[in-house]
């Protein structure tokens, strides 16, 4: 669980934090002066996690790819305004959240699910799901796919804010106080959004529960 005082993208190594932080600041300074290789190195530090976030938020490879690019272009254009005493991962996380939120708001109202990638060597959504059970039970796999599909449909019925809060809480494990900050709202408003999201999901998935 990550608390609001430390908004850090999960997965970063904890060893030699001071050294890593200084190394990262050096990269940022160079990137701010226009060093493209430094910017590329900065992207590589975080881009897998950014892609994971956007993919879990949008559940579509195509949209995740678009948002990945939008996030890093925004970062590139506004990196000059980033103050080095702040934590870069928190700033980046805020950019990701805002971009996803804007996308969800634009998308609201479209009823069809995004087309799945498929064919010609591209991976379909189901194949992209993590699978660490080599001896998978086919019935269990089928049920998991059904639940995933029903969940996806149910998530699209949520408002953009409800969806954002639910994903950040349920999938990313952030505290509601931190979620409120990222979404530009209060902790109480984030709690209400989470509650409404859970209510709606319970109604839509009642036959599966």
């Amino acid at each position, binding site marked *: *669980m990550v608390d609001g005082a430390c908004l850090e993208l999960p997965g970063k190594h904890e060893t030699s934090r001071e050294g890593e932080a200084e190394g990262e600041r050096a990269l940022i300074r160079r990137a*701010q*002066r*226009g060093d*493209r290789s430094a*910017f*590329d190195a900065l*992207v590589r530090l975080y*881009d*897998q996690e950014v*892609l*994971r976030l956007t*993919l*879990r938020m949008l*559940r579509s*490879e195509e949209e*995740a*790819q678009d948002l*990945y*690019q939008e996030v*890093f*272009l925004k970062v*590139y*254009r506004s990196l*000059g*305004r980033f*103050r080095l005493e702040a934590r870069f991962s928190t700033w980046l996380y805020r950019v990701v959240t805002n971009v996803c939120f804007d996308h969800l708001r634009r998308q609201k109202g479209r009823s069809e699910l995004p087309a799945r990638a498929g064919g*010609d*060597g*591209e*991976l379909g*959504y189901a*194949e*992209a*799901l*993590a*699978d*660490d059970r*080599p001896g998978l039970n086919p019935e269990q796999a089928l*049920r*998991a796919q059904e*639940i*995933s599909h029903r*969940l996806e449909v149910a998530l699209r019925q949520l408002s953009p804010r409800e969806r954002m809060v639910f994903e950040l*809480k*349920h*999938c990313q494990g952030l*505290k*509601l106080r931190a979620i409120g900050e990222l979404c530009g709202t209060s902790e109480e408003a984030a*709690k*209400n959004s*989470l*509650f409404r999201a*859970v209510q709606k*999901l*319970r109604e839509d*998935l009642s036959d*599966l*529960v």
Partner: protein
Amino acid sequence: MNCDDLEKTSSLYLYDELGANERAAFEAHLVACAACRTRLEETRRLHRLLGQCPQPEPTPELLVRCRQALDDALDHEQLGWRSLLRGWLWQFGPMPATRAVAVLTLVLFGFMLGWTLHPRARSLPPLAPGATASSFMGPDLGDVRIRHISEVAPDPQSGGVRITLDAERRVTLEGSLDDPRIRQVLVDTVRGYDNPGIRRDTLDALRMHRDNPSVRAALLYALRHDTNPGVRLEALKTARGMQWGADVRQALLDALEHDANPGVRVAAMDALVEHAQEEGMNETLMPVLERLAASDQNRYVRLRCQAAVWKLAENER
């Protein structure tokens, strides 16, 4: 606490969002209230159901595509006016007032420069009688961009000047890929041009002639040696459609075993498994897949290789 308030509280309880006092009060209420216990259990079942949904993980191929697209977008961004202005302004540091003065100075300078130069352009004297517009020796400079001037040597005796410069001229070639000259330009581009996006587009253009010997060699070269994984992936996709020979099989096996990028390794595996039976490759391919299923550094590659081993074993039966 009444039971209606507690409906919201049960979600927050399961997400560990309650303070110590609230938590204690909630748990005390649960002891006495069967309806709230039932409601909590329903919410808990919902959480368990949501936990059964596997979370999507980005594939290596998706990551490669994202990185390649971002690389191209940043290349365009760097050539744009925004980047030039940003680079100039960054020199003045973070002080907003200084930056504003810098912008204003730039605008005023541009205006004054234009105003100063414009009347001069009109007042250029006409050519003296007998003079010609281009009385110089050398190549036609139309449509030429000067990159570097290495020497300017005036000749006091003749009044002339010798200028040595490097220039590039934009040339547009159009034609069919049946034309060997066009093909050769494209093959050279695949082998040596420094922009990976152009190399990838070139591979796409060469697709219909992939069985031409020089094109084939260039494709396999790109698959083996190109520094950009997106380009290697494009070469691999084109190679799949070639007439297979020992060179293609070996290039794909090398990609499967040694390519640094997991997305390329998976694509090579797919191509080899697809053709394994018709190419009689099962005996060669199976041990490689088994080894990678056990020891590849990438978890996704290990899983896919294991699935491929099962598939080949199934086909054998």
